[in-house]
Structures are given as structure tokens and as C-alpha cells.
């Protein structure tokens, strides 16, 4: 009898100890379990492909045939020596600037307009998003034919008002503007809505105080809205940078070949990557371009971050 009570007591003590341990583990580790899905998914679809692309870029690698031996940094060296690579980098930057800068300015203006007391507010907000719902392929096909050099709508209209034709498919800058137009058509409304959400979160009493102090609408916009919008602006700029530097659909469908023009006028980095990987079946070189593009995006992203921080904090400090 005594032995059994001892056993029971020992058992219950052990059970208690286990429960205590479980409780401690629960507090210590379950938060990690709760957030793990994101990290597992990120590792699977973000980190692993990134590392694997790096691995591929160090090999001679055929798209279908697969690995063909270690080559070290030969792919990088080859790509960096190509004229087309540097043209692609120039085009990517140029299209990015021509699209992102006006896009963000217009998006902010639209957001500010939508932030006022409009009638049929939901209607206006929805219509701003409408271009975003249209398939990018459809957008590109329509714009592509509008920007035709001889029979396109834009040049025909220009001719009507007595202006010379613009060589949308021949001149690099003109083609960049045409492509940027398609990008802006799709993304301005989307960014405007994000900025609008940011604006709605700004405490209204700030505006009321400023109005009482006699600040004009313009002054309120630049002194309150813009500085308060800082986190949203940073978010929008960074996503626009990532998206803008990876631009693919629009230049790919801008002409019938999809390779960026006869003189690579609008061949972006992703088109160059595609050309190497899927047309020439050289996956190693394509992977090298992918990594170089990654480096460029990180670099530009950091520069952007530093710039926007400074601009925004300078605005807020005053």
C-alpha cells in the first residue's frame, strides 16, 4: 500500500513535471510555430529558388538537358562582357524612371483628390482601379497597335494636327515612353488606392488645427499629408522599384518578336534573361543575369530607402 502511494506520488510528480515542461515550451516555442508558415513558405518559394538560381549560374546548364559541369563565374564574366547586357540595364533603368516617377506623382494627386469629400466616393475609387483589372496582355495588344509607327492611332492623330510621326518602335526613348504609358495605365490607380488608404489613416485633427491656423490646402498637403504618408510612400516606392525593374509583359508583347526590338531598343533585363534561357536554352547564363538583376534591385532599393527616408524626415522635421 505504501509502495503504491509512493508510486502514485512519483507518477503525479513526473506528470506535473511534464506538464510544467510543456507549459514552458508552449510559452517559449509556440510563437515560433505560429509564425513558421510564413518562413517555411518563404524558404520554399523565396530563399531556395534564390540559392538554387545561384547554384545554376555557376554551371554550364541547358534548359532541358540540365547540368553540364561546374564553370565557376564564367557565366557572369560572359554576360558582363555582352553589349546587350548593358543595353538591357540602360533600358530597364530608363523605363523604370519614365514610368515610376510620373506614376507616383499622379497617383498621389489622384489619392489626394479621392481623399476629399466627393459625391459617389466608392464609384470613383472603383473606377480608378478599373485599368488594373484588365489583363496586361490585352492592355499591351491595344497599346501596341495604338503605337504603330505608320498605321497606329497615336501617329495618325499627330498627323491630323500637323505633327510629324514619332518613331515609337524605332527610337529607344520613344519606345520607353510608350511602354511606360502601358505600365502607368495599369498601376497608377492601384498605387493611388494604397496611398489613399495611407491618407485616410492621418488623424483629421491635424488638418483641423492647420485650417484654424490659416494654412492653405496646398500647404496642408505638403506639410501634413506628405510627411504623414511616409511609411506608405516608402512601401509604394519599394514595390514599384521591384516591379519596375522586373518589367516583362509589356516589353515582351510590344512587338511581334518579343525580344526587345531589332537594336534592343526596349530589351529589358528580364527579356534578356528570357532570351538567354528560353530561346538559346542557356540556363546558366540566364541564372547569372537573374542574380545580377537581384543585386541591382537590392542596390536601387537601398538607395531609394535612404532617399525617401531623408526626404520624408526632412519634411517632418520642419
Amino acid at each position, binding site marked *: 500500500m505504501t509502495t503504491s502511494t509512493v508510486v502514485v506520488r512519483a507518477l503525479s510528480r513526473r506528470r506535473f513535471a511534464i506538464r510544467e515542461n510543456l507549459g514552458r515550451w508552449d510559452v517559449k516555442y509556440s510563437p515560433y510555430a505560429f509564425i513558421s508558415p510564413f518562413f517555411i513558405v518563404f524558404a520554399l518559394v523565396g530563399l531556395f529558388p534564390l540559392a538554387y538560381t545561384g547554384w545554376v549560374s555557376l554551371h554550364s546548364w541547358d534548359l532541358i538537358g540540365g547540368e553540364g559541369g561546374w564553370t565557376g563565374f564564367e557565366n557572369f564574366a560572359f554576360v558582363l562582357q555582352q553589349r546587350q547586357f548593358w543595353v538591357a540595364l540602360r533600358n530597364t533603368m530608363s523605363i523604370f524612371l519614365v514610368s515610376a516617377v510620373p506614376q507616383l506623382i499622379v497617383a498621389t494627386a489622384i489619392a489626394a483628390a479621392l481623399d476629399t469629400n466627393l459625391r459617389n466616393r466608392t464609384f470613383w475609387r472603383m473606377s480608378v482601379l478599373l485599368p488594373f483589372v484588365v489583363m496586361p496582355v490585352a492592355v499591351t495588344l491595344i497599346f501596341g497597335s495604338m503605337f504603330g509607327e505608320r498605321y497606329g492611332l497615336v501617329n495618325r492623330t499627330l498627323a491630323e494636327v500637323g505633327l510629324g510621326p514619332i518613331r515609337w518602335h524605332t527610337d529607344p526613348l520613344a519606345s520607353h515612353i510608350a511602354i511606360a504609358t502601358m505600365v502607368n495605365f495599369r498601376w497608377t490607380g492601384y498605387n493611388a488606392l494604397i496611398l489613399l488608404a495611407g491618407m485616410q489613416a492621418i488623424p483629421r485633427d491635424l488638418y483641423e488645427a492647420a485650417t484654424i491656423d490659416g494654412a492653405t490646402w496646398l500647404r496642408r498637403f505638403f506639410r501634413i499629408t506628405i510627411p504623414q504618408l511616409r511609411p506608405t510612400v516608402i512601401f509604394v516606392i519599394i514595390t514599384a522599384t521591384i516591379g519596375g525593374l522586373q518589367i516583362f509583359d*509589356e516589353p515582351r508583347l510590344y512587338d511581334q*518578336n518579343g525580344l526587345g526590338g531589332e*537594336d534592343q531598343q526596349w530589351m529589358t533585363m528580364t527579356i534578356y534573361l528570357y532570351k538567354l534561357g528560353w530561346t538559346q536554352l542557356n540556363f546558366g547564363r540566364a541564372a547569372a543575369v537573374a542574380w545580377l538583376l537581384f543585386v541591382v534591385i537590392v542596390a536601387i532599393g537601398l538607395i531609394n530607402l535612404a532617399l525617401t527616408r531623408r526626404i520624408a524626415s526632412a519634411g517632418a522635421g520642419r
Partner: protein
Amino acid sequence: MRSAGRVVGAGIAALLVLAGCASGSQSTTTDNTPITLTLATFNKFGYSDAMLAQYHTLHPNVTVVQNIAATSQAAQDNMFTKLAAGSGLGDVEAVEVDWMPKLKQYGNLFVDLTTTDTKSRWLDWKTKAATVNGRLIGAGTDIGPEAICYRSDAFAKAGLPSDPAGVTQLLTGDWNNYYSVGERFAKANTGVAWFDSAGATFQGLANQYHNFFEADDGSVVATTNPDVKNAFVSVLTASSKSSAHLQEWSTDWNAGLANGAWATMLCPSWMLGVISGNGPKIKDWKIANVFPNGGGNWGGSYLTVPTQGKHTKEAKELALWLTAPEQQIAAFVTTGNYPSQVGAYNNPALTGATNPYFGNAPIGQIFADRAKAVTVTPYKGVKYAAIMQAVQDGLTRVESRKQTIDASWAQVVSDIKALG
């Protein structure tokens, strides 16, 4: 823009599958299990719904679904992406002759289509271009024997003969003859160009040499072969006076065709459908039974059966049925794709065919003659399509007045070297 992520994602998925190395399993379906076969084609192959329904009556357990890609380029991109992924291709996949060489490197990913009755079904060169190590990986569909299509009203306006027989006589000769008639035409100032683009015309020349871009061992000779540079320079010299400067297949080119911007063009049989489809308002297109410098073949396709499919045995049967002479004659009547099957050539349904759009031209007879005039089979290696793209880019650079002929050629040479 952001869907670039999706494309990269697809590539990554392809890599993942490659890493896992999933090879397609072949099932041996018993005869009567109902199955569905997908047939992937592009542009216009002429395989009508009625034809596919007929196959269903012959094989009640097989239903055929056809997926049609808009362009050969789209079909090609799809093909290589899914070959790399190891799954997702149709049971029967159409392949164009120019990218066949790239696929031949991976011949073991396709089913051998050889049977006793396929031994002599096609023209020799057609079979040869799809054979790897004795295995036939593509069943020939059509070929593209070339004639010249011309606009009779524009010819008459320029004071040239305008009936098919007269034009045939006028254009009999070499390329220089074709160019000099073009000069005469240009002097008449009809407001219409002689040909559409240097690029399209160059295709005609390129297909008349056995080793144009590559030697038989696959080594690239394009940059040193004098024929290539001569063709490049001569086409561009003629183009300065005679071309509409509209790059083939571009939106402007399509609009130009609809508006009748040029008077002649190289006309492989499959081009007939393109011309009549794009230019319903232009009534004066005719066909001259002639081609500069003899004959030439441009394009043509195959049907392949990827081993990744689930029903390769049935798919092979379907591919061989579709490429039998009877079906290809039916396709010719529908879309103008000229059969590659020797057995079709004496069939009255083919030889007697006419086309009302082209003034009831006896197209069966014309293209039979044009096919007989083809004497050279171009060697097309792995890099053929990429080299052709580089040269075409060079031609377009000059036509769009971005570069001189010399500067453009120099860039062509460096672009071709970068393919190495």
C-alpha cells in the same frame, strides 16, 4: 509588370521538377477505356472540328481536343518551358521546321514514329530533318514551296504585264532580275512599294543554300560565308528603293497588308491564308507560278508525340492519321498548307484545287510545280533560329534608318558571335 514574378516562378517550378526529375510514366491503356488526347497546334493547321470528329467515329474511345496557340513563337516558348518542366505538354505537339533542330538534341523525349507505312510517306528531306539516330520524332504535316504573289492592279498601273502568265515570264530569272523589275516598278510612282520588307525577302534567299548559316557539322559559318553578306547587302540595296519597310508580322505590317502597301511578296503556300485573311478588301492579289533563282521552301511543320504524355501509343496513332495524305489534302483545301506527303501529289483533290480569292488560281497545280522546283535542302542546325533572328534584326536596323549597312552588319557579326 509584377507578373514577371509569375514567369520567374514558373521557371523555378521547372527547376524544382527538374531537380526531382519526374519522368513521365507510360501507361498501357487497354483498347476500350475512353481517353482524351490533346492536340497542340498554332496558327492554321487546317485540322477542322469535322476532321477530329471523324477520328472519334473511327476510334470511339478517343476524344481529341485541339489547343491552338496564336503564333509559332508562342508554341515554341510553351514547348521548351514544359519540356524542361517534364510535364504539361499536349499528347500531340506541333513543331515548326526552324526550331526542330533544337528539339532534335533531346530526341529521346519524343516517341519514335517509325512504322512500316511511314517509311516512304514523306519527301525524303522532310523525313530526314526530323530523324535522330534513326528515330523519326516528327510526322511531317506541310511544306512551304514558294511562289510570288502580286497585285495585278498595281502592276497594270505601273505599265507592267498583269496577267499571271505575263508576270511569270517577267519574273523568271535570278534575284537581280526581281530587284530590277522592282526598280522599274518604283519609277512608275504608283504609291505602292515593290516588296514588304528586306527581312521577308531575305528568307527567300536564305532557303536557297544548303549551308547558309551553319556547316553540316553544326559549326557557325554565317559570319564568314560570303553568300550571307552578299545576300544581306543586295537585299538592303534593293530595299532602299523597293521596300515598304514594314517588318514582317508587326502590327504595321498587318495593317500594310490590309491597306495594300506593297505589290509583290514571297508566297509560300501557307501565306495564301495570311494574305486573304488580312486583306479582304484588296481584290487584285494573284499568284505567279515563278520564284527568283528557281525554287525555294519556306517553313512547314511536324507533329510530335512527347514521351511525357500518358497515352503515347494512342497519340502516335492520332499523329500518323492526321499526317496521312487524305487528311493533309483536306487541310490544304481549308487553309492552303501544302502537303509534305508524296502520296498526296497525284490526288485530283489536290492537283485540281483552285482559290477564288486569288482569281481562281489553280493553286494545286502551281504549288505542285513550285515544290518540284525546290532543289536545295537547307541545313538547319541548333543555332539556325537564333542566327536568323540576329540577321533579321540587322536588316530591320537598316530599314528603320538607324544604321548604315556596314555598321549593321558589324553588329550582326558580334551578335552571332555572342551566341557561342
